[in-house]
């Protein structure tokens, strides 16, 4: 995840500190949400425990509404990642397989480690080696997989040719409906 630095950012040191503060809040919330727990994370992939989906779905609705409203008011820039259908699909599937093996994803792995799940240390080691391994082949993937279905900064409303404001409103209702359905259909 890369975003170009903007003029709004005042001081690198202040931003490094802010990053740590935001990270601490994020880690605190992830731990309280139970998503540092092995059984809750693997439980989601086993379709038994839907805590992860509930946390993510709620974060998406609330985050989307606030970020888009602030964007429309000219307060924030969006950081939409490029859509590369080939790389998103293949990378996503490989990531998913790894997620099941470790049960901790990159963010929740630090949550797991912070609460004392020491097996997360091996995930850290694997992530570092895996990152370097990707860098080794990154020249190759850039000219192949990353070119397949490269659509740039494409958003769902652009794809369906719907104006952003009504799309965001309808989408919020749709995700909320999904959350209500999850609450009714799942035990946890």
């Amino acid at each position, binding site marked *: *995840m890369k975003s170009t*630095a903007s003029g709004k950012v005042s001081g690198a040191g202040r931003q*490094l500190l802010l990053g740590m503060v935001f990270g*601490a*809040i*994020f880690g605190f*919330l992830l*731990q*309280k949400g139970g*998503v540092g*727990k*092995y*059984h*809750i994370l693997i439980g989601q*992939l*086993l*379709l038994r425990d839907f805590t992860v989906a509930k*946390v*993510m779905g*709620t*974060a*998406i609705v609330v*985050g989307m509404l606030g970020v888009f409203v*602030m964007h429309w008011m000219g307060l*924030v*820039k969006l950081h*939409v*990642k*490029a859509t*590369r259908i080939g790389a998103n*699909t293949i*990378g*996503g*599937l*490989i990531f998913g*397989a*790894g*997620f099941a*093996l*470790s*049960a901790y*994803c*990159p*963010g929740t792995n630090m949550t797991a480690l*912070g609460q*004392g799940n020491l*097996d997360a240390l091996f*995930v850290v080691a*694997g*992530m570092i*080696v*895996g*990152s370097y391994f*990707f*860098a080794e082949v990154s020249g190759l993937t850039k000219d192949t997989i990353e070119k397949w279905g490269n*659509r740039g900064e494409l*958003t*769902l409303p652009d794809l369906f040719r719907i104006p952003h404001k009504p799309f965001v409103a309808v*989408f919020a209702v749709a995700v909320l409906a999904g959350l209500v359905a999850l609450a009714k259909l799942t*035990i946890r």
Partner: protein
Amino acid sequence: MTPLTTLALAADSATDPLSYSGPAWSPYVVGALIGVLSWLTFYFSDKAIGASSSYANVAGALGRLFARRHTDSLEYFRKNQPKLNWELTLVVGILIGSFIAAWTGGEITDQWLPPMWQARFGAHSYTLRMIAAFAGGLLMAFGARLGGGCTSGHGISGTLQLSVGSWIAAICFFLGGIPVAMLLYGI
């Protein structure tokens, strides 16, 4: 009885995730607060939350210690030079915040093997867990770098911005993860 309850009856209770403790706080409260946190990172830092790139950052820094010229020659590290940045301090922050939450909430685990893993693979399956955790990390990092992000960067930050690629990636995380998890737990 919901369809999801019947699925559960097949599972042995010690390998049933629901026989272990749930989250300390409501997942909806936590999710909403993470949503608000994303407003703050956009507003105050002009950044979207993401976790996986920091591991690559550390990999690059370590690579430069041992093989500087080779590391600097690699496409990924040419575009993403290893350095102390916002994303890295964010990930360090997660560790600190989680510790505070677990400590104040009496949820410090201090264990090498999660209980549910032990129920499935044995109380002394350290080597197996080490291999699975390492291999899992390796695949996740490779997949995240190829796919452009992880469960945070795509799964929350990208999806909330309605990025098509992020929705594809997030769906693929689960499409890839569900069958492997089911194989692991023999469901």
